[in-house]
């Protein structure tokens, strides 16, 4: 069902935990399945993500995408971090089963939420970032795609 990469990140998730006094914290819930992800960012004065941690209540894919997403944004600028889409995370994990694609959206949205929190706290505006929803409502997949 899951790729080896996913299983690796699920079994040995990178960057689990919290950052005290984080520059930005984002929590997102997935209305579809009830799962929840929280991402902590430590961003320095050059707007570079020095550290990133997460906590996730969710399925195997949710844990693995959280782990991979934190890996991908660490060391990046904010601008670069915005490009870490769910697609990028999935690719880095060698794909996800179709029914699990929505899980990867959690990671993308959680990063956006953490960045938004950072921007608000610091009174800045991040180009291309809009107020994140606290809940992911994807369109229902077409259950009749036969």
């Amino acid at each position, binding site marked *: *069902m*899951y790729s080896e990469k996913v*299983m690796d990140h*699920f*079994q040995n*998730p990178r960057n*689990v935990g919290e950052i005290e006094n984080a520059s930005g914290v984002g*929590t997102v819930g997935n209305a*579809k*399945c*009830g*799962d*929840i*992800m*929280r991402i902590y960012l430590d961003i320095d004065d050059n707007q570079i993500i020095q550290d990133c941690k997460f*906590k*996730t*209540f*969710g*399925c*195997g894919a*949710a*844990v693995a995408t959280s782990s991979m997403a934190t890996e991908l944004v660490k060391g990046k600028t904010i601008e670069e971090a915005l490009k870490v889409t769910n697609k990028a995370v999935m690719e880095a994990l060698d794909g996800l089963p179709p*029914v*699990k694609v*929505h899980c990867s959206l959690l990671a993308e949205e959680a990063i956006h939420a953490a960045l938004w929190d950072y921007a608000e706290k610091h009174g800045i505006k991040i180009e291309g970032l809009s107020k994140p929803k606290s809940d992911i409502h994807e369109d229902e997949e077409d259950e009749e795609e036969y």
Partner: protein
Amino acid sequence: MSDMKTRIYLDNAATTKTSQEVVDAMLPYFTENYGNASSIYEVGQRSKEAITTAREDIAKVLGAKTEEIYFTAGGSEADNWALKAAFEAYSKKGNHIITTKIEHHAILHTCEYLEKKGAEITYLDVDENGLVNLDELQKAIRPETILISIMFANNEIGTIEPVKEIGMIAKEHGVLFHTDAVQAFGQVPIDVDEMNIDMLSSSAHKINGPKGIGFLYIRKGVKIRSFVHGGAQERKRRAGTENVPGIVGYGVAAKRAAETMEVRTAKERELRDYFIDRVLKEIPYVKLNGDPVKRLPNNINLSFRFVEGESLLIMLDMKGIAASSGSACTSGSLDPSHVLLAIGLPHEIAHGSLRLTLGEDTTKEDLDYTLEQLKEIIGKLRDLSPLYED
């Protein structure tokens, strides 16, 4: 998922290992007695006799007549047949069916289908242990009620419904009573006459029989017709060349389940309660789902707060333990278990549920190992969880 082979199988409500005895009984019907049971010649007649024996063995377990057992491809087909054909056959009487919110999807999705065809369905609530309320049932009956379909025992939480009382109510009101006994057949004593059951669904693979074979018991006089039309098999009520090895295997499995029931389920009940006791004592924030007493002998269903089901299952799998969850992610659907919601669990707790269902081979050592692994895994997942602060 993992490379580790399953060593401890605790998902016997999903399906069971086909017992060697059953397989041995089936084997000759593949390569020797392979004749079509409708044929006149000797090798066909041998198939026919084997089917008759299996039908007799199964009927005995239910206190039914031999000719009241109709083989199907499994529990789902039996459920579909009972509901759809009753809706057609009794359309003159009415269009109202009473069922519960905790039925298997084979019932619930069939009901949704029938609603589109004009059926009115009452979905009874259940209490926090999963039991239907007999007063509510009684009140739900109307002149146009044609069928009550209430499961014998629930597949997720193991709750055993008051089937005898339901049967009595159905009989008093002259309403047909169907019960989905897929989880109960061979696990608890059933007597269709004593319990006033008119139709009953069952599936072999839940009692160490083969997959792909089940039956619908139809009381003599119940005038429902075919669901699968065609040849004259099963007294013209279910077409299709008989699955002779499957039927033979089912017969042996049913006989075996009945014979071993007392001893087997006593052992299972003891193991079940031992495990539940220890979990409730040794792991914090955990809840037993389903009725503590009116419960299938082999069913354990627990909710662990702050923990998500799929992750839990994968981690157990990595330790060689096969289990299942009422959780969204396992079933291909993402909705949380309708059963756990119906007994009042909040969404995020329903999400962290674990079902362990014992089998005839389950040992105390298996459960001790499982408990140790479970403790560790729950700890690990709670550390990961943004909902948990210790």
